[in-house]
């Protein structure tokens, strides 16, 4: 349903356009198409993902999840609810956790994106959070794990020595359908020890 053509506005539109005798719905479409101003964003942009600058062709309305998964093939970032309610798509933007399904790629030009693929060191050493999650057997089915890892890594950047309650708060924007929350918290606490 297009609310721009609600019943109320439709009637208003018919009244306004009565003299021109244009069919109701067509009136809006025609007006819209003929007077759309130029000057919107460019599609070919550079974004910085995991320390590398990537040239990519991005639609104006494209979300970061879509760009990462389907244009850059970084499928570690999961697309689950696609509406900022689950956390599976969590990435870091300038070291802050964000839902990549609810950010436009056009908004992250000039910012540093870190996905789960970008956490391990150049020599392949796992990030302390990844290592700790393995040691604590944190994931169960594993689908929410990339988001949990990134949220935990972002938490430890802001607060390298969290209490268990702070860790709980830090991971509270990530759902786990298996209910492995306590195992993830154990992992975060161990990761904090590994970093120290």
């Amino acid at each position, binding site marked *: 349903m297009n609310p721009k053509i609600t*019943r109320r506005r439709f009637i208003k539109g018919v009244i306004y356009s009565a003299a021109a005798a244009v069919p109701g719905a067509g009136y809006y479409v025609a007006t819209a198409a003929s007077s*759309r101003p130029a000057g919107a964003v460019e599609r070919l942009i550079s974004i910085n993902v995991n320390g590398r600058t990537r040239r990519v062709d991005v639609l104006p309305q494209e979300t970061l999840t879509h760009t990462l998964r389907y244009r850059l093939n970084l499928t570690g970032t999961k697309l689950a609810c696609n509406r900022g309610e689950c956390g599976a798509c969590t990435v870091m933007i300038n070291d802050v956790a964000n839902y990549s399904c*609810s950010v436009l790629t*056009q908004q992250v030009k000039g910012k540093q994106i870190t996905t789960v693929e970008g956490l391990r060191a150049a020599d392949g050493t796992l990030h302390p959070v990844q290592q700790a999650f393995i040691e604590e057997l944190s994931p169960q089915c594993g689908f929410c794990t990339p988001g949990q890892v990134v949220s935990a890594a972002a938490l430890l950047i802001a607060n390298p020595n969290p209490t268990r309650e702070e860790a709980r708060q830090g991971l509270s924007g990530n759902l786990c359908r298996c209910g492995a929350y306590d195992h993830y918290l154990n992992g975060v606490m161990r990761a904090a020890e590994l970093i120290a």
Partner: protein
Amino acid sequence: MSSHDVMPDMDLYQPVQVEDAISLAARLGDRAWLLGGGQDTYGWLKDRAKTTEALIDLNGIESLRGVRETEDGIEIGALTTLTEIATNPLINENYSLLSQAAGRVASLQIRNIGTLGGNVSQDVRCWYYRRGLDCYRAGGNLCYADTPEGMNREHALFGASRCVAVNPSDTAPALVALEASMVINGDEGERILAAEDYFVGPAIDIESTTALREGEILTAVRIPSTWANATFYFEKVADRNVWDFALVSMAVAMKVSGNTIEDSRFVCGAVECKPRRLLEIEAAVNGRSHDGASAESIAATASAGARSLAHNQYKMPLMNNLVKRAIESV
């Protein structure tokens, strides 16, 4: 409901000066949609329940960000994120009512990008409306929530007029309690509205929760020092601690000397389509000291005049009890 990975085609404008954003908004009128953090916007667009031809992304406008001290209080840019507000030392020190409220919004990741301007301008969360049904608010001729079989557990106790949805904002009651004012810019210049007048119910405008007119942009929120360092009480009751919208919230600012509440503002959220000031409670509370019994008897009148729906009567004792807790917290 069908949801889509990708939003439909639209133009995107990314002005970096507030003047450019205003002239764009004026030029495009109802063909454009102002984009703050986007946490309310993207759902509408992905679901195809609302569409727009163009987004005007305000995030590149640096002058709309940050917290500044003014002669009489503080000014918060409308694009300041809820995380910044929850953690800002200036706000935490003097107006912790607002930082508490901002810290209870949605989830951590949403607060990291969601803005104050967006939080106070967001649309209602009635799921019939959100689903794209042709209800009063969407321009149609009936309400699906206020029917014998309607699901209206989250809906309004007060001020319903055809539409029974509530304003879901957590920061709105806090701003009304702090006597904030909203700075609005448009093609015809700047106007300033008291927070109390910024939020409007369906009797005034059934299609919008705010007094913002087409082409206008909320640029800042000013908080006077009137209630700086007052005694505050904030509580949000929701089904879940994260992500969820308030069932009832209570934001209270009180000036206390000794055991006496000299002056106060009691504002209740999620019971009406705008934050509800509890003037009668304020009148009964002010100038007196309180014990458990007097708090209880005053609080019992908080929900007086409520017109409940089939499934939201529980909000009445909830309101009363939050008022009681606020008085007892002194």
